[in-house]
């Protein structure tokens, strides 16, 4: 029954991809950017669905299992303010510039802003490298979910493989229009199913108040932050959501909007959407300590699915499985499409290989690149036992540290390619250093001070951007005027 529900769901998702393909016009701009025609509701749903991943469902519940209810304040509460603020400041401007000059990718946007092929190539490599751990948590979540809802009958490697194949199928068929439609459908699915499952589980456990009273007796430390969170870590963690300004898959959705006004609804509704998605898993993660005590490290990735399987097996477990798959696939699809688009536009086309290829061959080259990245990610998922929450945090740290690039491009006339290159290289060096230092440490902070690595790297990359720009020749006024109008 459980598997049947998940199989029907997968077929539905591919079906939506096929239907949107019927409406697809034959231009590259439609495949990659849905002819910049996405309205407010689909834009909100596709941005939000892309943003909410296995991190929000399995990662949050797994972290709440260890660190308690403070996880809700640590990530979703501040994300509900910072992410829409990032959208408010950057998205309409990026859209307007992208539409005026016909940009289809983030790399193309920044390469043209500073007129540097080297910057474009470096950014392409860095963005792909940072997306891989983000893809990895999705593939891992698929494996964990299918394994748990079938009580171990289906090994984790099959779940990860199913996710990769289904996503590759409908992205290949439907392009960004298909992805936006599927995201809208999937976002509604995981928001509704999350609310239903938490209600059913807590009712069967005697109600939220009863469960919290039991936790207050058995492990009261999970209901407060003292002892679970370092206050400095809490403060510096608030820089992590700046990553939304540099995700290539989010940038691609920004460019797909119908008009700048389309972003208004997204900015206003985002905090409530985040609260609705994050609250159920955090509550279930804390409640999971009552039924499944003693899970260690990454074992808690599966606590959400374990709780559903225990308290609501059968149909609801199948629906929840579909819900988790929805959250995972609605992010993986955009990430995969953005990587394929960047490879086709910024490598194959930009470096002239496209001149010797037909349109079909160019799109095929993008798909082969994406398949190779997915294969690499799938291989890593078979050997990775890390916490989903931790892996995502490292990925977000890299993207957030690149944030000065976005600000410099759209707001600082004096910024130069030397400054931008210095910024990216600073992120590469420091991120690698801290990642190696923090390997295997769930709550790693710089030198044990409580300061998250993102604060140090972002500070250093901002200084590199400013100093590098001021020490180099000013950019050409005509180029700057294309991105920052005089008025």
């Amino acid at each position, binding site marked *: 029954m459980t598997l049947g529900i998940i199989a029907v769901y997968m077929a539905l998702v591919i079906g939506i991809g096929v239907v949107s393909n019927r409406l697809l016009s034959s231009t590259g701009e439609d495949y990659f950017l849905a002819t910049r025609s996405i309205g407010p509701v689909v834009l909100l749903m596709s941005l939000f669905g892309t943003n909410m991943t296995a991190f929000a469902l399995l990662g949050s519940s797994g972290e709440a299992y260890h660190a308690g209810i403070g996880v809700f304040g640590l990530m979703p509460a501040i994300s509900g303010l910072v992410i829409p603020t990032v959208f408010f400041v950057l998205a309409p401007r990026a859209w307007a510039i992208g539409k005026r000059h016909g940009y289809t990718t983030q790399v193309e946007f920044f390469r043209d802003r500073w007129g540097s092929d080297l910057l474009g190539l470096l950014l392409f490599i860095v963005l792909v490298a940072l997306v891989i751990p983000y893809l990895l948590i999705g593939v891992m979540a698929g494996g964990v979910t299918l394994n748990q809802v079938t009580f171990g009958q289906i090994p984790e490697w099959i779940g990860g493989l199913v996710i990769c194949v289904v996503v590759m199928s409908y992205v290949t068929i439907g392009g960004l229009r298909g992805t936006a439609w599927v995201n809208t459908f999937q976002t509604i699915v995981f928001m509704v199913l999350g609310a239903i499952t938490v209600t059913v589980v807590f009712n069967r456990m005697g109600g939220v108040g009863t469960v919290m009273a039991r936790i207050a007796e058995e492990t009261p430390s999970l209901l407060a932050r003292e002892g679970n969170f370092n206050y400095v870590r809490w403060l510096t963690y608030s820089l992590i959501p700046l990553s939304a300004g540099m995700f290539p898959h989010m940038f691609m959705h920004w460019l797909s909007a119908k008009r700048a006004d389309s972003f208004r609804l997204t900015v206003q509704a985002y*905090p409530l959407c985040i609260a609705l998605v994050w609250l159920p898993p955090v509550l279930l993660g804390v409640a999971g300590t009552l039924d499944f005590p003693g899970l260690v490290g990454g074992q808690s990735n599966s606590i959400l699915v374990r709780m559903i399987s225990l308290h609501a097996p059968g149909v609801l477990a199948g629906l929840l499985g579909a819900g988790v798959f929805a959250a995972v696939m609605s992010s993986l699809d955009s990430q995969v499409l953005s990587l394929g688009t960047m490879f086709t536009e910024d490598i194959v086309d930009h470096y002239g290989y496209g001149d010797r290829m037909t349109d079909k061959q160019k799109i095929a080259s993008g798909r082969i690149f994406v398949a190779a990245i997915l294969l690499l990610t799938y291989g890593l998922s078979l050997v990775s036992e890390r916490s989903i929450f931790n892996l995502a945090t490292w990925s977000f740290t890299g993207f957030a540290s690149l944030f000065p690039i976005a600000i410099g491009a759209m707001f600082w006339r004096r910024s130069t390619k030397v400054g931008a290159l210095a910024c990216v290289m600073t992120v590469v060096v420091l991120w690698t250093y801290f990642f190696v230092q923090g390997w295997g440490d769930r709550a790693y902070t710089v030198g044990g001070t409580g300061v998250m690595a993102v604060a140090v790297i972002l500070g250093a990359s901002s200084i590199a951007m400013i100093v590098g720009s001021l020490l180099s020749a000013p950019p050409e006024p005509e180029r700057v005027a294309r991105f920052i109008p005089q008025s």
Partner: protein
Amino acid sequence: MSSKQWLAFGLLAAMYVFHNDWWLWGDSRIVAGLPIGLGYHVLYMIVSALVLTIVVRLAWPTHLD
């Protein structure tokens, strides 16, 4: 920046400050069925949505369309 834009960013900065509820750091009381720290942040997100609605009305870059 116009006075409306300054006001909008002032509101956002104030919300950022209120995220840091240090006075509830060690408090594990249950209020209305939820731990007080969790309840505070649920309320915080509702207020964030209201503030962002005001910010959008005050300072949306209408010249871009």
